């Protein structure tokens, strides 16, 4: 009797039933005959083990993040089509998290704090330092700069950095720390944009971000020199 049962379990019709039932079994339905057959039939046992292995390996495949430019391109198209109604300025947009993280907020906070400190009574006022005041208002208005403008702005930043380094010891320590955190954050953004530009020199959006980051940095350095190193 036992031998007959085993023969039945190993028969072709049992294999056909196994093939019909395997999906339901893998979906969590109760199929005791399927397991009995798998125990007696090497072919079906192997199939069950393989499919279970494929399922578990597939479930462990990690999702991947798209590159930043995907959102940047989507956003740009939505703005051009008038679908997005932006309420904020460029740097407040939450579209490129790593480009935005602490920099714009910190830079804005520093500028505001500097103005408040400067105007507050009892604040130590340092002697004024002459700075290369060559950043024209028109440059700040631009979202895109020609390569020669960008080059000129880089030179200005270098001059401002020189002046800042020479005089930064005059800053209040806490203010200096805040400035330098903001400058470091801006430098990170600049490096990130430069890395993207190296891979994709024609990426207009990144060029725009890079221009903005340079402008922000120049403004920040200028504000440190104008308002604090006196």
């Amino acid at each position, binding site marked *: 009797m036992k031998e007959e049962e085993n023969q039945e379990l190993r028969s072709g019709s049992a294999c056909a039933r196994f093939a019909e039932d395997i999906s339901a079994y893998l979906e969590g339905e109760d199929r005791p005959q399927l397991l009995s057959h798998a125990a007696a039939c090497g072919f079906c046992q192997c*199939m069950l083990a393989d499919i279970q*292995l494929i399922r578990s390996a597939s479930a462990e*495949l990690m999702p991947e993040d798209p590159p930043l430019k995907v959102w940047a391109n*989507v956003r740009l198209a*939505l703005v051009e089509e008038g*679908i*997005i109604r932006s309420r904020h300025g460029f740097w407040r947009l939450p579209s490129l998290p790593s480009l935005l993280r602490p920099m714009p907020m910190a830079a804005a906070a520093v500028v505001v704090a500097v103005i408040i400190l400067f105007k507050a009574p009892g604040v130590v006022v340092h002697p004024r330092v002459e700075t290369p005041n060559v950043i024209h208002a028109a440059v700040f208005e631009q979202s895109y700069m020609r390569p020669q403008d960008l080059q000129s702005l880089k030179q200005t930043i270098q001059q401002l950095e020189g002046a800042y380094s020479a005089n930064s010891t005059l800053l209040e320590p806490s203010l200096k720390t805040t400035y330098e955190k903001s400058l470091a954050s801006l430098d990170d953004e600049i490096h990130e944009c430069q890395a993207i530009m190296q891979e994709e020199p024609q990426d207009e959006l990144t060029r725009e971000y890079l221009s903005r980051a340079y402008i922000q940095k120049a403004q920040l350095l200028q504000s440190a020199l104008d308002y604090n190193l006196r």
Partner: protein
Amino acid sequence: MAQEQSAASKAASETQLIARAQHGEEEAFAALFEIHKRRVYSLCLRMAGDVAEAEDLTQEAFLQLFRKIATFRGESAFSTWLHRLVVNVVLMHLRKKGLQKVSLDEVDNSQDEPVKREYGDDDRRLMGSIDRVVLQAAIEELPPGYKAIFILHDVEGYEHNEIAQIMNCSVGNSKSQLHKARLKLRETLRRDAGRLAKTTGLPS
């Protein structure tokens, strides 16, 4: 209980985001993109098998989504709606490329083939674990209809009733296509393991 509450609050906040996006608020579009970008991009990447194509497809899918978001009335789950759109974008792309003839309205049954039983190699099973890269390459070889259902079910974790909505097919069709996809995948993995064994002299 805590998980149910969290899922409910997630759904509520997504509903709010959708409503805000329907009014053109940028933050809402950005937040919806953030929530769904990984699953959408991964689906595109696995379906297309090419990074540049996956980026373009993700971009196209989100653009279509946001252009149509005003018409979303919540009859189905947002993620199901989104994934239906993504699958259509990808299948349309593959159709344009002319690689495979793919039906967008129902799963193409012309891909059906009977499972070949290879007698005499009962004990040659896939060993231990499957390398991620090998598995991804094998998934890429699947015909698009099988591939979409396999990725949605076994990789992304969708249920058959959701896949039926996404793929516009019956639940039964989804189940049978999934089974065939798994068998096809197994065949590919066993073939590759066999080739590797011949090359290296190691057992497969």
